[in-house]
């Protein structure tokens, strides 16, 4: 049957303690290898070594980040909304009316550089299975992307591939893509970031956990066959930097996705859940069968074990041996724990959806994870030793040597536009820069309409999905990050990313409720990177506490660097909010004339890390804008109340490019121009990036009521002007016809990417 020679068994391992093993090639240190042997009381078999190598990899074990991530739980604000928190496949949040939602961001950075189309596609597939494994129906996806310079040749290879992969996989699954973000910086050349988010919806009682219980219950592997895809991807690909001389062994191991299989798997799982046939479930992502078996067994509680016949795993390539089967990252697979009496129905539902399902083992009461290969025992280990008891490193962290100089390099020394003509030109230059340009070239490749529940999608501040057609309950989601801010001050920069996503959700009229994150950094073995990471985590945990929104889960992606050059620290923060009535959502567009344009919040001359400094001077220096979380809370409260009372015709948060870009986007999205008078120094008013601000259009007649609302929450409100006409006019400064704004905004990405 199989061409595999005799395998390294437990008995052989016990008898040959000194046989050399390739633990270093698998990414384990000598100390880690010695520790494994200590836990087992002998050297590991090859199959066991495979399991430990992937489960103790950075990607799966969070060994460099775990001690820091604890802050998310320790500092979590008190909330009754969290039904399942950190440590599960994804966090689950109560949104009322018996509904719960689950959402999570995850990186697929390294595979997307190696093979942009498949890397990004399988990134979507993986996060969707995480959401499915919680018992939820996936209902929407988003993505946060970073690439090298927009005009660099390699970006023309990577970006279209990544966008095509996300489009291909998400569209074929029938999941609306409701937003995200896209930015460019030389630091991401060679290290693009592809962070995918999935949102799922369920009833409270549908929650599923990754736990094997009840000795005698069957372990069922279902979905695609197992092939040689991505073997070692978790340990080798995701846990080492490019450019350190070992590419040849790393680069070919990207998985290949089949979204049609995944669509069937989704419908199949949901029908199995509804039939009450699934006691525990785990998706197969990084580390495949190794991860699913150890986590299910470890999740089952004291005394629970599992016996697995690896030779029962259906293979696409009959030459695979036990270690390869354990490590394979073949896509579109799930593992379920099923009672024997439910197996027939389980198999018949899988048959209906044309999903192959195989019993590969059973739950035991031995507390051991045992695996056999044609009768020989090749694994016999405590499951928790791999799943929960991996190494934890307190990596040394030190403020980077140049940090002080960087912060001292204030953009106030840069030449600024002064005249109306210069300010006008600056606005057009920013609006046409790849970072701020219209993203239709990308988003037009994504289906936003499928399922008929998408109330808001890009280029809106946040995506908004209706959860219940009858009650109009919905959820809003935004993802944000700013590598420049985080480079200048990772603590404040990460808080600003959270504040922006929080503000974006609030700008739709939703109440922010919970947080996910994907922490993209360079090598944790670099003390400067580790300092950035610890500052970012501390900043996020502190800000979540201050804003009253708990972190429900997330993902860490280290080693985003080429040789010694790390990316800018780029935590991407996702915020989920509840919308009580999606028919009252606020959109960014100035769609009706004669509305008062009002600026909310206070602006200062804050240009450190700004879009203006980046575009006009390729400058990153100084300090990022000041963080004021109290002001963010007040602003969000005003927006939610104003939306619910119908006082506003539009709302748009201020972020990159300040008021200038926000006003231009409002005009272009809604088709109405506006005439505004700036409250202070024109340059600062237009391009400063102070946080906790939004621009709104007030419904005619509601001005007084809105002013009272702002005053009662202590939110400064400055009347700027009025909507209408076909130009963006800044009184005494400049006027730009909307056609000219459109041309500057729309042309950039098509000119670059065809």
């Amino acid at each position, binding site marked *: 049957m199989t061409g595999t020679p005799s395998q390294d068994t437990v008995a052989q391992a016990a008898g040959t303690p000194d046989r050399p093993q390739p633990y270093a090639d698998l990414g384990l240190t000598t100390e880690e290898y010695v520790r494994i042997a200590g836990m087992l009381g002998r050297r590991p078999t090859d199959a066991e070594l495979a399991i430990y190598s992937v489960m103790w990899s950075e990607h799966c074990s969070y060994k460099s980040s775990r001690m820091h991530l604890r802050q998310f739980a320790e500092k979590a604000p008190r909330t009754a909304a969290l039904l399942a928190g950190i440590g599960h496949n994804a966090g689950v949040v109560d949104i009322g009316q018996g509904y719960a939602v689950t959402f999570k961001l995850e990186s697929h950075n390294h595979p997307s550089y190696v093979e942009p189309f498949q890397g990004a596609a399988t990134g979507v597939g993986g996060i969707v299975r995480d959401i499915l494994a919680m018992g939820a129906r996936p209902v929407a996806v988003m993505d946060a992307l970073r690439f090298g310079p927009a005009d660099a040749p390699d970006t023309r290879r990577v970006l279209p591939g990544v966008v*095509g992969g996300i*489009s*291909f996989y998400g*569209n*074929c*699954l*029938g999941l609306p893509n409701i937003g995200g973000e896209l930015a460019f910086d030389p630091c991401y050349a060679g290290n693009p970031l592809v962070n995918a988010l999935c949102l799922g919806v369920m009833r409270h009682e549908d929650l599923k956990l990754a736990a094997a219980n009840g000795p005698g219950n069957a372990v069922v592997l279902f979905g695609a066959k197992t092939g040689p895809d991505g073997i070692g991807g978790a340990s080798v690909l995701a846990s080492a930097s490019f450019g350190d001389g070992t590419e040849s062994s790393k680069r070919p191991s990207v998985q290949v996705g*089949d*979204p*049609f*299989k995944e*669509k*069937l798997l989704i419908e199949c799982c949901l029908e199995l859940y509804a039939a009450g046939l699934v006691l525990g479930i785990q998706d197969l992502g990084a580390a495949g069968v190794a991860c699913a078996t150890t986590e299910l067994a470890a999740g089952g509680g004291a005394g629970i074990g599992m016996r697995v016949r690896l030779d029962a795993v259906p293979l696409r390539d009959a030459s695979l041996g036990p270690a390869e089967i354990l490590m394979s990252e073949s896509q579109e697979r799930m593992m379920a724990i099923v009672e024997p009496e439910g197996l027939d129905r389980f198999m018949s539902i899988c048959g*209906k*959806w*044309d999903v192959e399902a195989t019993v590969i083992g059973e739950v035991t009461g031995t507390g051991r994870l045992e695996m056999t290969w044609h009768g020989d025992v090749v694994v016999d280990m405590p499951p928790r030793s791999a799943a929960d008891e991996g190494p934890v490193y307190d990596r040394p962290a030190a403020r980077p040597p140049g940090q002080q100089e960087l912060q001292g390099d204030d953009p106030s020394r840069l030449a600024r536009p002064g005249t109306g003509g210069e300010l006008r030109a600056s606005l057009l230059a920013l609006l046409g820069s790849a970072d701020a340009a219209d993203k239709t070239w990308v*988003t*037009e*490749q*994504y*289906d*936003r*309409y*499928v*399922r*008929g*529940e*998408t*109330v808001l999608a890009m280029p809106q501040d946040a995506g908004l999905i*209706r959860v219940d057609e009858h009650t109009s309950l919905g959820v809003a989601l935004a993802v944000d990050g700013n590598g420049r801010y985080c480079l200048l001050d990772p603590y404040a920069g990460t808080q600003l990313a959270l504040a922006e996503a929080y503000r974006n959700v609030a700008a739709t009229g939703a109440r922010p409720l919970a947080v996910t994150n994907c922490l993209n950094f360079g090598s944790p073995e670099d003390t400067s990177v580790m300092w950035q990471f610890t500052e970012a985590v501390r900043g996020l945990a502190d800000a979540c506490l201050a804003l009253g929104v708990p972190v429900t889960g997330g993902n860490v992606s280290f080693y985003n660097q080429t040789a010694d050059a790390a990316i800018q620290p780029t935590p991407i923060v996702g915020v989920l909010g509840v919308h009580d009535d*999606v*028919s009252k959502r606020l959109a960014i567009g100035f769609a009706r004339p004669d509305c008062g344009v009002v600026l909310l919040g206070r602006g200062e001359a804050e240009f450190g890390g700004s879009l203006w400094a980046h575009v006009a001077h390729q400058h990153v220096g100084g300090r990022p804008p000041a963080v004021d979380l109290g002001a963010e809370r007040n602003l969000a409260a005003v927006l939610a109340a104003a939306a619910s009372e119908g006082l506003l015709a539009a709302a748009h948060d201020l972020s990159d490019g300040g008021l200038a870009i926000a006003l231009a986007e409002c005009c272009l999205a809604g088709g109405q121009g506006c005439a505004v008078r700036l409250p202070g120094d024109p340059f600062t008013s237009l391009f400063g990036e102070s946080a906790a601000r939004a621009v709104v259009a007030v419904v005619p007649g509601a001005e007084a009521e809105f002013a009272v609302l702002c005053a009662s929450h202590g939110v400064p409100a400055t009347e700027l002007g009025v909507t209408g006409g076909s130009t963006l006019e800044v009184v005494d400064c400049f006027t730009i016809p909307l056609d000219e704004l459109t041309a500057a905004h729309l042309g950039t990405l098509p000119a670059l990417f065809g």
Partner: protein
Amino acid sequence: MTARVGVVTFPGSLDDRDAARAVGRAGAIAVPLWHGDRDLSGVDAVVLPGGFSYGDYLRCGAIARFAPVMAELVPAARAGLPVLGICNGFQILCEAHLLPGALTRNSGLRFISREVRVRVESTVTPWTHSYAPGQELTLVLKSGEGAYVAEAATLAGLEERGQVVARYVGASPNGSAAGIAGVRSESGSIVGLMPHPEHAIDALTGPGEDGLGFFTSAVRTLAAA
């Protein structure tokens, strides 16, 4: 009697839920039909929804054509059962030779998801008769293989017999011949449409309500029959 309109789910169908909602909004009962059943449940009309049936393996719609449900649907459609194929459903109707021509890769080679204007060119079908001839609608186009092609003689025949149901206003977004967005069978009961009317039934979740007329047309036709 409330009309009963079947919505077929193939493996990989995605817009079946949206089609069923549109049928309901139009005042009919949506009846789910399963690809594997040789059974139309006695429905009065059928919608083949959008998606990637069978993963679009081989060619879009090429495998769905052989599904058991199609063995019932094809003769029923030939006998006059009103059938609307949207996007992938249109592709299936072409593959099943219920409609002429074929859908091929967009001229820009990328998937396109955008709101498009189309002009209703034929109102003699059960799916379009509540529109005015020449009426312009905003619908949603979302497809990678939406370019309608046919031999010159076939195209000429379609034009001659008024079988073009809808045409893109302005430049064709996907390279469709003669800007064709939808065609009908000679009898008119079978209509294939590349843009999605079921995504344009509610201004909250789509570009407006222009698409609802396809479904209310059918409901009125059935009520009058």
